[in-house]
């Protein structure tokens, strides 16, 4: 068992690109929510309770349009469906953790923390404690940047030092680390192309889940067929 400080430092080392990326998005969200008439501390309450960037943006624009709360909650549910897949994929690394610990970690499963933690777990040098640290460090960055945006978002110049590209670059590098063979490259190409097509055709971001389901299933079938062919030649 590593001591708390070591785990926390490891979490910060892994999570800094996420924090960098959350900062401009959080500020922008704070500005938008403030314009919609939400006080900074209430902005913070949403970030703390929901912790899902795209769903929060959509909720604020729906609030501005006077949409009823039930529709907003339902939309949030649909927008965040993709997290089912992320949590499922992470679950194999949490087999020996307590119920309490898992319940705490589940709170912080976002696109970004999932990508970072999944990559680290896969490389074999990662523990559930460090994953939780990544989640909580990212969460602190998200909540604080949205509150800051609510207080003084307009005063901070936009797009300095290419900060708007931080998350794009992070995802590019983590995707590259996932490409561990021909089957993974093929699955990535199928998922990516399909996601672009669906993103253009469908509202919200259901395309992430839909494309992932189809591509993973396709890759799975290919893998099964390949292993069957190997068996046949050895028969």
């Amino acid at each position, binding site marked *: 068992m590593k001591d708390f400080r070591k785990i926390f430092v490891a979490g910060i080392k892994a999570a800094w*690109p996420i924090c960098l990326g959350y900062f401009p998005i959080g500020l922008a969200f704070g500005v938008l929510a403030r314009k919609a008439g939400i006080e900074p501390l*209430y902005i913070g309450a949403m970030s703390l309770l929901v912790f899902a960037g795209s769903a929060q943006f959509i*909720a604020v624009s729906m609030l501005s349009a006077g949409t009823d709360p039930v529709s907003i909650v339902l939309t949030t549910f649909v927008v965040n469906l993709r997290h089912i897949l992320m949590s499922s994929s992470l679950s194999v690394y949490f087999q020996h953790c307590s119920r309490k610990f898992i319940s705490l970690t589940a709170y912080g499963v976002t696109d970004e923390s999932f990508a970072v933690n*999944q990559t680290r777990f896969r490389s074999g040098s990662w523990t559930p404690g460090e994953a939780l640290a990544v989640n909580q460090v990212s969460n602190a960055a998200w909540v604080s940047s949205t509150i800051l945006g609510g207080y003084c978002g307009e005063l901070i110049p936009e797009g300095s030092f290419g900060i708007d590209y931080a998350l794009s670059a992070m*995802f*590019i590098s983590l995707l590259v680390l996932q490409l561990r063979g021909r089957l*993974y490259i093929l699955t990535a190409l199928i998922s990516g192309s399909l996601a672009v097509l669906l993103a253009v055709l469908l*509202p919200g971001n259901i395309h992430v889940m839909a494309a992932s389901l189809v591509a993973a299933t396709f890759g799975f079938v290919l893998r099964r067929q390949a292993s069957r062919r190997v068996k046949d030649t050895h028969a």
Partner: protein
Amino acid sequence: MPETEYLLLVAGMGLVTYLLRWVPLFFFSRMVLPRGLVEWLDLIPVSIMSALVFPDLLTSGAPKHLDLFQVKSIVAVPTLLFAFKTKSPGGTVLVGMLLYWLAGRL
């Protein structure tokens, strides 16, 4: 919108989001998953990351429309090469930001 109503809305949003994250993590980590499911789940991360990256680089606007040759996607080419060469997420983030910033100044 009154404060109480707003907080109820936010609590509802938080609850549905948390459940989506909690249910699979909580129950799957307590089960021995069939081999087929494990093999399928093995392909989920690469699928999700592609499904996040490609639309981010190749579409823009709301609602999204195809935008193949935007600054984001052009900068992605050298960023991708750097990522392949170094396999370093931290370095790739810094290089990507630098290139994007430079591209914005052109």
